[in-house]
């Protein structure tokens, strides 16, 4: 056996072991690890989560079994006191001696404590290990019991801000004290720091910049910090997080070469000045630099493992220090050279103080190369920007699109993953390149996204690269001639359209028949509603027939709201209502103490109905001529209308009458997404019909029919399908359009997205539903007719059948009502109390 001894049991030491045992030829080696802490290696990057309730075990990177399984000897609480490079042995503080063939120093770093007078006083801590955190917690408890409230963190860098969050989690008032004029001085410019500062201050954390601390005030224990301008900040505790210093003591004693300001000098094989000793992680000085990020440390671990196993992998010349993280809930990222400023560089800056977003990219004057940048408040562009920077990819014509988003057309400013070179590092946590992902798919080692994750570990770190890995896997599969499917979920390897055909041809009417014959597992919250929706579209089965596979809204025929109660929306076709009916709604709301509001679609919404009360509420409404408005379903919600020619002096046609007719025609049909309509009686368009899935506008000689618009988060104007057509033609085209959409759209795909994805677009759609190019119009017509003719009110079904009423009780074993609901007043009505 060849002995490899690893000194240091931190993240990098652990990663070395993990990399080593995964490589071929390692069977002849015995790894022994020494750690001075009492526990297995843990995730120091997420240390502050320890304050937020995570246990030391939660943070642990592995299990005791893992070491056993991989035949690694782990010695915790054992400190190495010296290395004898002549005999190739080490001595531990227990006076034991171990022989090595190769030694790996992964001793990491210690907190740097600036030489400030009084730092030895009680109540001053560093922020580095779980023991440090335990000591901080104990002390915080003690001072809080004495009424003390203030705590400071020295250092406004990454770790300092993490520490400030930790202090706040201990319910102390936190202050961050930074010597530099800005926060995260190595990653952010002044404007970005200002933005971050205001976000952090919103969380009641005090920020004190430009502060040189002269001495720590107090007798035995800390009472305050005295700054250079004689200003005193009164604090009862101080956590120092002002940087790191490499742990190179062992190396020094052993006579290995170390840097002037510390750090064990290594070459690109991670070899120290001794040919049998390697150094990795924050203890290693590579290219004159100490790298305090985990990604370079992991890469060093891999290089050292390769070298010991006689591989030829070496460390890259330049190491990227780009980072993306969430600090105290604020997204922050910086990449490349974030500060570069000279006559050849233009900085493009987007700053939105209202939303707290700052973005800066540094681009060469010719607009061709991205050199670096900073993102605060919204770092969603980071992955795309980092890939462009890291692979020196071409920039879009207007580089500002990279941070402002493309303002024309639909394509992303970042291009697609297929533009990336094979050398592009996609997952920087695990250093996985695009080539590695593609190769494994091409040579058949992997065939799915989850295979790729298992093999390469890509996405298993921070997870930020996941969308890109998914894209690459899809693109590669496509290039291999494999069909890339928008499968519904893990239970069905089919698209919604395929399922539609499967159900139709086999005449299935039960979810479990479909999954047993064509899927696997037990189904889930994704595929069950899809299949239920297909049943409804084919047979117009109401939600009452497929209760088990319907999501909560369809199952209880109401919309679940913030506190778990439901809202009730009776149909009010076209928005028309008689005074008598208005009074009924008012009386129901009063009787059941419901909050009442007019919705955006001209309906009346009654909120706060408890499950137990729903059937009784519906009964009153139905007895007075109402029916369900399907406000809960992926179905026709409403057809909005303007006043119309009956009352409006401009009206050209009867928009109200037509809206009522359309709403009643399509009420109850289920679709991949909710559908809304609008009818305006003139081009003034008071019904906002062009913001709907279908919209009609009265013009000279008939109606203009618009389709595939929507409001919501990504509003789309509807497009013109046919001009000046009569009512009969409108209905014909509408039937076909809706039915074709219902048959072919993916789950939860709106009509606008459906049309975008439809090959051939609007022209093709016209060919299909107007000119019957593929000969399906007759089928579409008859399918829609059967849906229209089989309408039933779901509320009515429930109140007529006591068997169905059983669903609407909160408890199975008692008639009591949910006693957890609490309300507070709101403008003469009420709203759910926030927890």
């Amino acid at each position, binding site marked *: 056996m060849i002995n490899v001894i690893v000194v240091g049991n931190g993240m990098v030491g652990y990663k070395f072991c993990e990399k080593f045992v995964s490589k071929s030829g390692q069977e002849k080696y015995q790894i022994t690890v020494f750690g001075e802490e009492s526990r297995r290696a843990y995730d120091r990057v997420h240390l502050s989560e320890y304050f937020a309730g995570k246990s030391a075990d939660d943070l642990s990177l592995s299990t005791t079994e893992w070491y056993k399984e991989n035949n690694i000897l782990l010695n915790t609480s054992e400190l190495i006191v010296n290395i004898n490079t002549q005999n190739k042995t080490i001595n531990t503080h227990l006076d034991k001696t171990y022989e090595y063939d190769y030694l790996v120093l992964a001793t990491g770093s210690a907190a740097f404590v600036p030489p400030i007078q009084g730092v030895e006083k009680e109540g001053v801590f560093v922020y580095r290990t779980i023991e440090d955190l335990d000591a901080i917690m104990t002390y915080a408890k003690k001072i809080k019991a004495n009424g003390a409230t203030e705590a400071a963190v020295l250092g406004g860098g990454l770790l300092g801000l993490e520490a400030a969050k930790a202090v706040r989690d201990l319910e102390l008032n936190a202050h961050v004290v930074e010597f530099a004029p800005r926060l995260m001085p190595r990653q952010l410019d002044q404007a970005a720091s200002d933005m971050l500062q205001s976000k952090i201050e919103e969380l009641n954390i005090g920020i004190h910049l430009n502060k040189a601390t002269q001495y720590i005030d107090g007798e035995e224990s800390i009472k305050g910090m005295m700054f250079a301008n004689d200003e005193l900040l009164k604090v009862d505790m101080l956590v120092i997080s002002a940087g790191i210093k490499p742990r190179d003591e062992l190396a020094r004693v052993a006579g290995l070469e170390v840097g002037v300001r510390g750090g064990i000098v290594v070459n690109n094989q991670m070899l120290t000045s001794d040919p049998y000793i390697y150094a990795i992680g924050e203890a290693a000085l590579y290219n004159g630099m100490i790298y305090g990020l985990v990604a370079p440390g992991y890469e060093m671990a891999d290089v050292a493992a390769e070298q010991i196993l006689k591989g030829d992998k070496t460390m890259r010349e330049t190491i990227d220090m780009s980072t993306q993280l969430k600090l105290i809930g604020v997204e922050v990222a910086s990449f490349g050279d974030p500060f570069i400023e000279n006559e050849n560089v233009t900085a493009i800056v987007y700053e939105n103080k209202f939303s707290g977003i700052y973005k800066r990219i540094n681009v060469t004057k010719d607009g061709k190369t991205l050199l670096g940048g900073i993102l605060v408040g919204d770092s969603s562009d980071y992955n795309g920007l980092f890939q462009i920077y890291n692979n020196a990819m071409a920039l879009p014509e207007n580089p500002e699109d990279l941070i402002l988003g493309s303002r024309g057309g639909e394509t992303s400013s970042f291009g697609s993953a297929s533009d990336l070179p094979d050398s592009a590092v996609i997952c920087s946590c695990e250093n996985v390149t695009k080539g590695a992902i593609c190769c494994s798919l091409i040579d058949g080692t992997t065939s799915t996204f989850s295979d790729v994750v298992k093999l390469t570990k890509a996405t298993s770190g921070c997870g930020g690269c996941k969308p890109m890995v998914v894209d690459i896997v899809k693109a590669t599969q496509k290039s291999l001639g494999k069909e890339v499917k928008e499968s519904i979920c*893990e239970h069905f390897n089919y698209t919604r359209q395929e399922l539609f055909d499967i159900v139709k041809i086999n005449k299935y009417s039960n979810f479990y028949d479909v999954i047993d014959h064509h899927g696997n597992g037990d189904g*889930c*919250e994704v595929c*069950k509603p899809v299949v239920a929706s297909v049943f409804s579209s084919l047979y117009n089965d109401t939600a009452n027939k497929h209760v088990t*596979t319907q999501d*909560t809204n369809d199952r209880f025929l109401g919309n679940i709201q913030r506190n778990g109660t439901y809202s009730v929306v009776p149909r009010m076709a076209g928005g028309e209502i008689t005074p008598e009916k208005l009074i009924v709604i008012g009386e129901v709301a009063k009787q059941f103490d419901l909050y009442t509001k007019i919705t955006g679609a001209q309906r009346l919404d009654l909120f706060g109905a408890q499950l137990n009360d729903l059937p009784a509420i519906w009964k009153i409404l139905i007895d007075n001529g109402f029916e369900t408005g399907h406000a809960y379903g992926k179905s026709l919600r409403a057809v909005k209308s303007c006043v119309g020619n009956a009352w409006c002096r401009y009206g050209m046609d009867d928009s109200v009458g037509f809206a009522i007719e359309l709403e009643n025609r399509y009420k109850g049909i289920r679709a991949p997404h909710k559908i809304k309509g609008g009818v305006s009686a003139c081009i003034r368009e008071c019904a906002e019909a062009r913001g709907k899935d279908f919209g009609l506008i009265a013009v000279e000689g008939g109606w203009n029919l618009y389709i595939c618009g929507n409001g919501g988060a990504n509003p789309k104007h509807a497009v013109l399908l046919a001009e000046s057509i009569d009512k009969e033609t409108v209905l014909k085209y509408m039937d076909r359009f809706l039915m074709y959409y219902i048959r072919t759209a993916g789950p939860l795909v709106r009509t606008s997205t459906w049309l975008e994805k439809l090959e051939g677009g609007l022209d093709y759609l016209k060919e299909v539903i107007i000119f019957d190019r593929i000969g399906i119009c007759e089928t579409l017509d008859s399918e829609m007719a059967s849906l229209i003719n089989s309408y039933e009110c779901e509320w009515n079904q429930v109140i007529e059948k006591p068997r169905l009423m059983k*669903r609407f009780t909160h408890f*199975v*074993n008692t008639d009591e009502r949910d006693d957890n609901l609490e309300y507070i007043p709101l403008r003469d009505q009420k709203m759910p109390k926030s*927890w």
Partner: protein
Amino acid sequence: MEELLNRYETVNLSAVKIWFKAGEIKDFPSNRGGCIKYKDKQIAIFNFERRNEWYACQNACPHKMEMVLSRGMTGSTDGIPKIACPMHKKTFSLVDGSNLNGDDLKIATYPVKIEGEEVFVGFLE
């Protein structure tokens, strides 16, 4: 809010002190959930008939503290039986209560036993 969540703690089968009769099999819909009240607790019980298994967990969604889990949809991920919260679709293992979407919100689970036609849930007190 915390006080509400503190009411719920996973009970292991070996630790059960009280078997509470929640009802009869026919009271619980198949492949769905039903909620029962036990002292100050609301417990969701799932008759996962397709797998011939029964599960119980807290009815409170740990995310927004609403009493709704019994109204969620049952299913499985990689063979693990799960419940999806109807509010925001976080999914939880019915076996150990862990959050299958990755973050650290967990739910408490309780043992269920069937004797004859009767359904019992295990509690510590």
